[in-house]
């Protein structure tokens, strides 16, 4: 009997202990508190653009044409047609032009001189050609100094800026600025046609130009211009209705540009690729699709890295894919996706991407997919990121060789 009672007690103790342990193990230490939804990514970055991405702007405004200062500590860009710049590490915005000025492009000539391509707004339906202005950091007064009128394209080099100017469709001329945005060299030999875009080779000795030949409707000519000798030549011309989109780029492996049928849109959802990346050797010849890029790829814009070894590319793997940032290594024909986002719209304008001076990151402009319903956020408008086009710095790593 004693055995039975003792055994039953021990058994009951074991069962009670097990129940207590089980209950204690499964119960929460505190009462569960409902968690309110997080506010939008103010000060943080949407993970859709990849790890390490950093927001360089916030709030409303149609932003474009990012440009890093040579030292890499400031970035300038256009917002709704005016120009601002800010330190890459803080939000202290500095406005360079007023709202009654239409800025198309901006480039740093040096760490304290910003060059701006733009014009006063048209009045009375009369179209006004763009002019090049210079403005210097550190001056209290907001003042633009005119450098040249009827300027059609600008591009930075390591010591200054190169620009094309000329009023008519039949010929253009080039000039270089050095030291405070002043014209240092004016090339007397004209270029036949209208220079629509230009950029400089990595060694600063040559320039590649996208030219609309006299009498043509399309920017179909690709020219090379020797900046030491002041002489240029046509390298290739596209057939039919093909046109060059944006700015051609000079890499160590030849000249690259985006081209396609005139009138197409890089955002069209057709079954055929609309714009492709082409390559032409420096010595000239027929353009060929860029090696390493898939044949279905729809290109929007390209930019060569500061060392001339890589191309940053904005585009889509095929017409139905989302827009993303890629990097092409022309030497080994390696084409790598830097972002794999599905829900951010990366802006596809020809000037809407820029390499940092060190070549370790690229600035792009993106926003979240637009909603057809009102969006409610718990932040002030000027701190919102993905609701508006904003600048992001996306790390792309160094040159792998």
């Amino acid at each position, binding site marked *: 009997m004693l055995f039975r009672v003792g055994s039953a007690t021990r058994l009951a103790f074991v069962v009670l202990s097990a129940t207590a342990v089980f209950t204690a193990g499964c119960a929460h230490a*505190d009462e569960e508190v409902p968690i309110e939804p*997080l506010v939008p990514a103010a000060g943080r970055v949407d993970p859709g653009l990849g790890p390490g991405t950093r927001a360089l702007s916030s709030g409303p*405004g149609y932003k474009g044409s990012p440009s890093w200062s040579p030292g890499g500590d400031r970035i300038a860009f256009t917002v709704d047609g005016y120009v601002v710049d800010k330190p890459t590490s803080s939000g202290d915005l500095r406005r360079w032009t007023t709202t009654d000025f239409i800025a198309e492009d901006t480039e740093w000539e040096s760490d304290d001189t910003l060059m701006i391509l733009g014009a006063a*707004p048209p009045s009375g339906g009369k179209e006004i050609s763009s002019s090049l202005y210079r403005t210097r950091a550190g001056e209290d007064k907001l003042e633009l100094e005119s450098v040249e009128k009827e300027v059609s394209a600008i591009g930075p080099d390591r010591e200054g800026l190169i620009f094309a100017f000329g009023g008519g469709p039949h010929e253009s001329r080039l000039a270089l600025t050095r030291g405070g945005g002043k014209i240092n060299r004016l090339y007397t030999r004209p270029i036949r046609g209208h220079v629509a875009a230009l950029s400089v080779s990595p060694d600063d000795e040559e320039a590649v130009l996208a030219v609309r030949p006299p009498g043509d409707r399309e920017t179909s000519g690709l020219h090379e211009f020797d900046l030491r000798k002041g002489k240029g030549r046509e390298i290739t011309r596209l057939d039919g209705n093909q046109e060059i989109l944006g700015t051609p780029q000079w890499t160590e492996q030849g000249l690259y540009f985006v081209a396609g049928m005139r009138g197409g849109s890089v955002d069209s959802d057709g079954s055929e690729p609309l714009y492709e990346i082409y390559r032409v050797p420096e010595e000239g010849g027929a353009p060929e699709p860029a090696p390493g890029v898939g044949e279905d790829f729809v290109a929007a814009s390209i930019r060569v890295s500061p060392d001339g070894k890589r191309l940053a590319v904005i585009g889509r793997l095929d017409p139905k894919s989302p827009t993303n940032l890629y990097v092409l290594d022309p030497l080994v024909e390696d084409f790598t996706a830097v972002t794999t986002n599905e829900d951010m719209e990366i802006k596809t*304008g020809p000037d809407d991407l820029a390499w940092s001076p060190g070549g370790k990151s690229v600035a792009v402009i993106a926003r979240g997919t637009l909603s057809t319903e009102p969006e409610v956020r718990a932040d002030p408008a000027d*701190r919102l990121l993905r609701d508006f086009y904003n600048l992001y710095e996306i790390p792309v790593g160094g040159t792998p060789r």
Partner: protein
Amino acid sequence: MRDVVFWLSGAALAFLVTAGAFLLLANLATAPSEKSLNPDRAPGDSGHTLDLQLDRERLASLEPLPDQSLDLAVENEGGEQLSHVNVTLIVSSENTTLSDSRYYRQTVETLPAGGTANVRFEFDLGAPEQPVARPPAPTLEPSREILELRATTPEGNSTIRTVILPP
């Protein structure tokens, strides 16, 4: 036989006590992170004292025309009565070159603890003129209207809601 049962029970009890101790320790270690999961706050957003409730259906029915109205509820989620709660509405455009932001203000004189006050704004949501200084873009689209609603008290309590209306 008794010894065998005794030792088996003892071993089982020791196992369960040890396992229970580990489970208790694990619970103690994870408890603080649950408490730290608070929502991020905007600057000036002082916490849970004030809240603004908006009717999504009413927001969706707003049109880019004059004489629009919007009802919202201001909630005092704190334990003390609030007085002189200022509720402001700023109507602006996504296009930052347009400087015609409109400001509206209502005041809730007293808001008891746990109470709610309804506020109505009647405002102009007329489409602004097309921007002069907007640069040419591949896909030029109409600017969206932005409503910024803010409730503040003299004591520094505040909350904000930003509404972005589709074009």
